[in-house]
Every structure is written in C-alpha cells, then in structure tokens.
C-alpha cells in the first residue's frame, strides 16, 4: 500500500536468506514508527511455501511465482519491481546489501527517480518521515548520515549481520498477494546461461556469525586445515587476507578486506595476519575480535578486543580441542 515499508527478500537453497530476515526485523520497527504496513517482496519459481512462511513477518507478501523468475535476471526483476513500486508507492524499500541487491537496486533507483544508500550500518526515522541511513565512507574511516530528500521510495541496502533476527508472529498475520508476472521480453537483453554455487556447508562470509581468518603467518595453503578444524567446531566460515589470496593459498571468494568482502560477524578470529589497513576496512565492524599473532607490534592488536600473543601453530589446535569440550 502507499506509504508502506517494503523489504525485498532473497532465498537460497530453499530458505529465506538470513540477511533478508534481519532486514524484515528492522522493517517492522520502522513501519511501527511510521504507523504503516510492512510489505515483503519475493520473486522466484516454486516459492509458494516461502511466501506462506513470510506471512509470519510481514503484513503483505507480494510474490511472483513464475519459471521466468527462477534465476535472477536484472532485466526481469527490475521490470517487475519497478511496475509494482510505481503502482503501490511504498515509502521505504529495504534489502540486504547482497551481490543481487547491489546489481538490481541502483538501476531501480534510477528508474524510480529516487535516491539509494548502500551498505548501511543503521537506519533511523527522521521527524519528517525521512529515513536517515548511516553508511561507511573511506572504508569505514568515517560514517555519514544520509537522507533521501527527493524521490520515493527511499531505498536502503543494509550490510548483512547488522540487525537481529525478527520475532515470528504466531499465528501468522500477513496475507499473500500473488503478482501477475508480465514481462516485456523486448526489454530483456540479458540471458543468464548458468548459475553455479560451490557446495559449501558454511554460510557465506558476509552472512557468517563467526569467521576465522588466516593471514600470511599461516605459511602455506595446507596449514589452513588448522583453521578449517577450528571453524568446524564453531560453525564458522574461514576467511583469508589479500596476501593469502595473492599467494594462491585460498580463492578470492574467501578474501576479507577492501578489495574482497566486507564482513560484520559477531566473532572474528584474526590469525597470523598483521592487520594492514585494507584488511581492517573489511572487518572493523565485527562485534568481538580475537587476534592471534606472535608479533606484539602487529597493528591488528589495535583493532582487537582480545590479543593473544603467541605461536598460532601452538594456540589454534589447543583452542580447537578446548572448544570441542566446552561447546
């Protein structure tokens, strides 16, 4: 409905993504402050069940269920959301700052002639109903409060792991509203040939609650087994520094830092890494940081809550063993 808060929901492997649920939780809070409804947008194929699931979080579940929507295609998703937003006129549109959202929503902002704030770390309602988004500049050296003065909806993409998970309404209160999926195929220029995801048991770095990152102090690709073992015990995801990726010990997909991924887990282990600024820029919003390094001068200790001075090859296996018994 006009004036509502909307959240765009993504799913993966048959489940609503954690980051989408986090944004729904914030969306509910903003809708309550505005006295408006909370809508959620779901596009996909065979997503009936997920649409039902979302009625536990939102008042209205707009969902497009069509084979055309099975794989994300910017040209297709863009048309559907633009048409719906032009008709329903939401006040705010939120999504997690995922690869998909960062591909889709900037273009959508252009079409809707409105502003967009990316990678937001907090969202507040201003007195005049405008959304104040706090976002990092210069790799997090500075934060800026930005507001969309002109254009609606106000679009904001939120860094994953920024907000807590929402309460489940029981019984579910929302209603589902299937969308009539009509696509102007003459405007679909892109053809998605293939989508592959590595069969990973772990969450992506951007969504992981615990991350264990190794630096060049790991001394070789084979030693990352130590971090994999620790990650197994903690249900964590393993990250790597730029030096490690440049050495070919891990793939770029695992890189945390300014030219890799920006992460914000609850707990971050920095193991055998010095803490170069481009790395710190990618992890400095982690809630608790444990650094393990044998060099007392390593800059990473300035960015850590707990600094362990010692040999990682001695400390990490012991830590894994101890945690195995304790948790």
């Amino acid at each position: 409905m006009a004036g509502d808060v909307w959240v765009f929901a993504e799913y993966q492997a048959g489940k609503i993504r954690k980051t989408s649920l986090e944004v729904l939780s914030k969306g509910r809070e903003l809708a309550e402050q505005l006295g408006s409804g909370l809508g959620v947008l779901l596009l996909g194929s065979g997503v009936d069940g997920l649409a039902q699931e979302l009625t536990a979080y939102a008042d209205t579940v707009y969902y497009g269920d069509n084979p055309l929507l099975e794989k994300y295609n910017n040209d297709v998703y863009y048309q559907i959301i633009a048409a719906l937003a032009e008709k329903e006129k939401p006040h705010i549109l939120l999504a997690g700052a995922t690869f998909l959202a960062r591909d889709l929503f900037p273009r959508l902002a252009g079409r809707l002639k409105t502003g967009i704030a990316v990678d937001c770390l907090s969202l507040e309602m201003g007195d005049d109903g405008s959304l104040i988004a706090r976002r990092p500049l210069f790799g997090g050296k500075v934060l800026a409060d930005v507001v969309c003065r002109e254009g609606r909806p106000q679009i904001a993409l939120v860094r994953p792991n920024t907000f807590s998970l929402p309460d489940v309404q029981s019984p579910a209160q929302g209603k589902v509203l299937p969308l009539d999926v009509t696509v102007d195929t003459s405007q679909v220029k892109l053809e998605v040939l293939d989508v592959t995801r590595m069969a990973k048991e772990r969450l992506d770095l951007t969504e992981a609650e615990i991350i264990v990152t190794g630096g060049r102090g790991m001394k070789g690709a084979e030693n990352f087994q130590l971090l994999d073992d620790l990650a197994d015990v903690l249900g964590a995801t393993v990250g790597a520094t730029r030096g490690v990726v440049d050495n070919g010990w891990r793939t770029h997909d695992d890189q945390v830092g300014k030219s890799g991924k920006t992460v914000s887990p609850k707990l971050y282990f920095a193991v055998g890494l010095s803490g170069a600024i481009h790395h710190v820029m990618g992890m400095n919003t982690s809630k608790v940081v444990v650094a393990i390094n044998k060099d007392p001068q390593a800059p990473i200790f300035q960015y850590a809550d707990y600094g362990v001075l010692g040999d990682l090859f001695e400390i990490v296996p012991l830590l894994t063993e101890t945690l195995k018994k304790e948790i």
Partner: protein
Amino acid sequence: MNILVLVKQVPDSEALVQVKGEGSGVEVEDRYTLNFFDSLAVEEALQIKEQTGAGTVTVLSLGGQKAIEALRTAIAMGAAEAVLLEDPAFENGDEYATAKALAAAAKGMEWDMILCGKEAFDDSSGIVGPLLAEFLGIPLVTTVVKLDFISEEQAVVVEREIEGGKEVIKAPLPVLLSAQKGLNEPRVASVMGVMKAMQTEIKKLDLAAVGLSQSEVGKAGSKEEILRYHRPPERPPVTMIQGEATEVVRQVVALLKDEAKIL
C-alpha cells in the same frame, strides 16, 4: 569496438581521513590514486582493443585536477582519448547527479561498451555505473570477473561473482559492465606511456556542452544529502593475553564466554 571507461581518482587506503568540526565535513590527506577497480576496467578495455585490433578506448571522469590525474594514469596505461566533465555546476553532486552528467556526455560519444569499477574506494557505493546504464537505457552486469567478447555476435559472455559462486551471463552490445577483482591484473604504465599521458590533450566538457540545466546536476540534481559525518565507534583497548599456551587458551575461552558472552 569503441569502449568508454569511467575512472575516478580516490584517496588511497592509507590516507588519513578525519571528521571536521561538528561533523560538517571531512579532511582527507592528499594521497590519491586511480581507483583500483577502475584500473581493472581500463586494463580490460585495453585487452579487448588489443584482441579486436580496432576501435578506441576513451576514458571519462568528472571533477577537477584530481580527475585529470585519473585520466592521465589511464592514458599512460594505453587509453587513447580522455574526456573530463568540468564545471562548477557539477560539484557536490551525489551519485544520481553524477550519473546524469556522465549520461549526457556519453550520449554525445561513440561507444559499444562501457566499463567501470564495481565501486570507488572512497564511497564504496557502486551506484554510478548502474544508474548510468539506466539513464542510457542499456543492460548492465556488475562485479564481472571474466569477460569474453564474441565479435560475430556483437555480444559478451561474462562471469559475475555472487556469494559463494558465479553467474554466467550473455549480453548484447551496447552494455555496461563493472569490474571486480579477479578480472585481470592491471598493467603498470611504461615510461613512454607516462610521457604520452603528459602530452595528450584532455577534452573538456562543461554544463552547456553536455546540454543539461543547473537543476539537473551537482547538489541541485542530487537525491541524497549528507546530514553529518561521524567518527566510527572506537573499540575498547585490547586485552592482551600471553604466557603458556594451555593457560592462554583457557583464558581466551573464559573471556569469550563470560565477558563477551559470545560462546
């Protein structure tokens, strides 16, 4: 194949950035460089040009002296032509206003493909490229890590990074693509290149030349306004733990459980 590449000069990652006064602005140390992701875009354009053997690589930026430095770096790498959007009216614009100006300039140029970095190191938005595609009415693919140009079809097949995987996408020309780390290894400019960059004339376009009005660009044409700047919250001083390994590990686990309450 004519390729247009967007470039931007940004503070390097070591540059000191401080919040001024009561959060009204920021002071940035004068340590600037061509945006890393833009250098990937320039490199890719040069490789396509070398592969196809025809066409021109033109670099485009908006701003003043800093933008000229970005353009010269790109010429030194091998770009043939450089265009600068320069006018007081363009200043203090957000991504929307910047993309409007770039789109107006691009409309007056000949290109089959536009390349840009996936984001700039300073604001990390990654918005200008997609907005430009929208304003020009062309398709876009962001975070591209592999690019194959298929000349007989006048199309590209690209791989795009997503969380834990990749998408393979085919797009007809014209198209806008944004470069992600992994696409290539940008070349270092040769001495000859640097000398050429000093001599190459940079074509300048002002507001009148791109045919826009004052209200469409700069602050007036912006959608987003920065209200204030903040310093990031500071982490409390580090608790250092050292000694015998078993004892150290016991302490860390206890702190994570009892103090940080995270395990």
